[in-house]
């Protein structure tokens, strides 16, 4: 087996390649304002994924089902070039005062999904969460401009939503893929996941082959 190379000792330790067991594990974090649909995304993915492709959905939540620390869902996507490819999906707690916990969950992230709440009255919360994301990534040595990243505009079915174009104009940071979603019905959920997973794998190709 040819010995691999690392260009970084891993202060920003991330994608884990185990040559012995031939597994690759990548971490994707769903971020966004409170009650925006992050947990709903994971719940839908869990409910509709075949049993052999998923692990248990872990939800560390309050008594009122608000995410307290994180949700976690491991997905087995199959084999790529002989390596089992697993994605670990996490959500962060969206409520403002859980910032310390959000910072912890971001560590080691490979790809991000920002779940925006399309409702007009949640625009400020979206913006605050987005800037919070950038600040917390920076603390870990990441730059949002360089991290695989997808924007989901959730709750498109509600009557009081901002138009998708206005929402995108307000929240898009770097021309990232944008998906409209109704997470509780699964609309846009897998499109979002596929898009961010693809970015993560292509980034691995860029780093591994370069």
């Amino acid at each position, binding site marked *: *087996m040819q*010995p*691999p*190379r*690392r*260009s*970084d*000792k*891993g202060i*920003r*330790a*991330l*994608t*884990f*390649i*185990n*040559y*012995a*067991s031939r597994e*690759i*594990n990548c*971490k994707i974090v769903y971020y966004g304002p409170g009650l925006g649909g992050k947990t709903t995304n994971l719940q839908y993915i869990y409910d509709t994924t075949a049993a052999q492709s998923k*692990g*248990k959905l*872990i939800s560390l939540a309050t008594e009122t089902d608000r995410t307290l*620390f*994180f949700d*976690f869902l*491991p997905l087995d*996507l*199959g084999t*790529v*070039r*002989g*390596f089992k*490819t697993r994605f*670990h999906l996490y959500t962060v707690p969206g409520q403002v005062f859980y910032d*310390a*916990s959000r*910072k*912890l*969950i971001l*560590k*080691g992230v*490979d790809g991000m999904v920002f779940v925006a709440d399309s409702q007009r009255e949640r625009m400020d919360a979206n913006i605050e969460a987005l800037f919070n994301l950038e600040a917390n990534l920076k603390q870990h040595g*990441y730059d949002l401009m*360089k*991290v695989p990243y997808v924007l989901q505009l959730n709750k498109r079915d509600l009557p009081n939503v901002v138009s998708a174009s206005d929402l995108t104009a307000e929240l898009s940071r770097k021309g990232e893929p944008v998906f409209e979603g109704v997470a509780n019905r699964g609309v846009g959920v*897998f499109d979002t996941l*596929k898009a961010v*997973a*693809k970015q993560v*794998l*292509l*980034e*691995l*190709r860029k*780093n*591994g*082959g370069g």
Partner: protein
Amino acid sequence: MSTPVVLYEQEYEQLKRVITRLCADANAKFVFLVDKNGQQIAAHGEMLNLDTTSLASLTAGNVAATDGLAHLIGERGFPVLSHEGERDNLHISIVATRVILVIIFDERSSLGLVRLRVKRATAEMNSIFEVIDTKVDRERDMGIALDSPFAEITEEDIDALFN
């Protein structure tokens, strides 16, 4: 985004041998190594139906939260955590600054015995991780290229994952 963290096959086998011996010497039910980001590294023990993926993620979260608490009160960290249950107990400690060692034990062992055996095993594992780091640094200095599984991945390969 940096390049991936890798685990060499030779050192993986060495780590497996260390935790297998630790499990026996400590009379433990299960020994588990996980990195601080929640990725499983190696495991050994009699708890065959244990959900090790969830264990890895929750352990990493537990350690991360405890580290956060430590920093808040001015400590560098709490390198050892112990949880006592009605039947089984959990001992969590840090190896090589970035790896978590988890031991599940019951009345067939004791906290004292576990701590004693962990001390020796930790020293052995620290050496193994130092070898990994040295190997990587040496190869980087020599400009040895990575034989990455993703070097030739195509968009079709990726699309196939979702079909």
